[in-house]
């Protein structure tokens, strides 16, 4: 088992490095992420076990694997610190539920590719940090996001996707708006009257016949 996972680790690292070298590869979307992960399949998910592997995901998380739930939960903590601001604590906002809803709109093929990419993100950090992303301290995790933002196409893709999902999962919640003075929906609040449909154009030949009729 140990040998096997060492072998897997070497193989994955080679594939990963190839991915890094392909900076100019143009069609490097989530499909590319899936390709890397497919080669690195097998014992990959168990490359380094995490205490979180034994913690079940909550019942509502039916659209996320347990590993994905833990990844987004960790990303929530890492990406949305509120100390020193008057912003709302992300623990009180259904961030990961909202991420799950957004992911539910993806077509099955893209969803599968994204799942592969997320798994890659979680696991590949083992090479640089000695533990999976879900177990990384907040400081190094933030540095990782910043460094990857300047990294290869693959790194930029993964960090952008994760950040965007988590940020919109948080900021879409009305509870997060008051400290920023964001007004949210206003038409009803302001009592704006509805104007209805615009009148038929009067100079159109048929419309003028209608008037005469």
């Amino acid at each position: 088992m140990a040998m096997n996972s060492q072998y897997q680790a070497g193989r994955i690292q080679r594939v990963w490095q190839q991915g890094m070298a392909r900076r100019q590869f143009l069609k490097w979307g989530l499909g590319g992420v899936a390709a890397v992960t497919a080669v690195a399949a097998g014992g990959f998910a168990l490359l380094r076990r995490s205490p979180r592997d034994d913690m079940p995901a909550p019942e509502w998380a039916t659209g996320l694997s347990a590993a994905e739930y833990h990844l987004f939960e960790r990303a929530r903590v890492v990406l949305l610190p509120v100390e020193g601001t008057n912003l709302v604590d992300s623990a009180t906002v259904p961030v990961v539920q909202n991420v799950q809803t957004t992911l539910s709109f993806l077509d099955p093929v893209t969803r599968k590719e994204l799942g592969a990419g997320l798994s890659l993100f979680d696991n590949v950090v083992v090479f640089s940090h000695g533990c999976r992303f879900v177990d990384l301290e907040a400081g190094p995790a933030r540095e990782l996001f910043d460094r990857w933002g300047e990294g290869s196409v693959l790194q930029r893709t993964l960090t952008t996707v994760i950040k965007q999902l988590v940020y919109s999962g948080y900021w879409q919640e009305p509870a997060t708006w008051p400290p920023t003075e964001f007004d949210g929906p206003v038409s009803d609040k302001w009592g704006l009257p509805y104007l209805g449909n615009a009148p038929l154009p009067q100079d159109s030949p048929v419309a003028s016949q209608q008037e005469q009729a």
Partner: protein
Amino acid sequence: MSQIRFQASGLKVHQAADVIDSQITLDADVVIVGSGAGGAVSAYELARQGKRVVVLEAGPYVPSQAFTEDFTQSLHDLYQDQGGQANSSGDLLVLQGACVGGSTVVNGCVCFRTPDFILQDWQRDFGLSELTEAELAPYFDEVEKNLSVHDNGEHEIARHGQVIREGAKKLGWSVKPLRRNIRQCGLTGHCLSGCKTERKQSMLVTYLPWAQAYGASIYSDTRVEKVLTENGEASGVEAVITRHDGTVAASMTVKAPRVILAAGAVQTPVLLLKSGLANRSGQVGRNFACHPSLLVAARYPQPIHPWRGALLGVHVDEFMHPDKGGFVLEDGGFGLVEMTMLAEPGTGKPFMDYMADARYLSGLVTLIHDHNVGTIEWDGERKAINYQLSNADFPSMQRAIKAAARLHLASGASEVYVPASDKRVIRSEADIDDQVDSLENAPQHLRMVSYHPQGTCRMGADPDASVVKANGETHDVPGLYVADASLLPTSIIVNPQITVYALATRIARHMS
């Protein structure tokens, strides 16, 4: 004209929820695919000529009262692919409306006529000698009048527009109020979530109810899958009606000797490719351009509240002509979710500080005159939008970012955020070249959005180099027309809705 019954509010739409039969067959004079800018105008023009018109729309019918003014929710309810439509590399979000009224329901109301220098390119390079400024002027006049297009009044220039105007004046750059299709703007700033109180003169409250008054029928939740032909001529379409839970309610066949495709610049070529039609030139799905845009945000010393007031107020046209740069800058409002997509001054605390101070931010939208380098493909299962900013266009993008930064600084901003995947903050003129010259034209580096897909079934006189003629009819299939943004042979730099309305009006008039 006793049959004209004009509904003062809302539309009567056949929806999936109303369907009882599993197979529906209709006869019409004209069947129109899509109910956005091109589809709605065509429907009205032809219905008022007494034609039996059927409009098929893949998206749902969402009445204005149901608009939420919540951007995330609106992406899910009103946009193509729930707002997630992107290019193959995932770094260009291609936003399109997918509902009755199409993109016109969610657009920013900005109205420009096609610049004359673009029409001249079309005349010279595509043999479109008929499409002169003088020929098109009456069509523009008419649609602008119908849609209450007017220069923004002073009250329609929000704080974010006012500061930008001041900066442009200091720099001596030409700055003008934007023209918009709106009546009594409610100044909510929620244009991109649909105009709840029916002030935006979108197709939902203009041409569609007008078409309906003249007898056009509208079917929502109805995706056209194939264009039919008989003896080489258009003869109708096949469609599928799908309930909102994803189950199929019915299949539909509409028999009609005239078919107008107005499904937008991504879906119209997909439909032609699926149908195996009108592609003798091999140009269907090619020549995709999209005005890749950036929203360059900046921090000001005073509160701006970028979500307050009319969404778009003024524009800088100093650099519009390709000889002067080939880009336009428009001040643009935004809410919190949009802000997170723009830029990041670092992960964690710097980002949350930036968001906590959101009210001090103001934005500039850059639009560039890109080359038609993209393709739309259909692999039998999924569409693909293959588009990467070309190396020829990257300098334009850099020039546009530099101009936006210079303008923000002149307007009094203390920090300008370059919308890149890494942290790039400009604090003074001296930073501009450093921060912008070192950008790379690589996937996932710039955070680009397209609101203006176009060009994928281009017009032209030469049947071997274009898909449709100047009158909108495909070269290959008599009776099969295209009347949407797919037509535009080159990108037009400016926001395209008025161009689509004018061309669709002309196409419908020439059909009779």
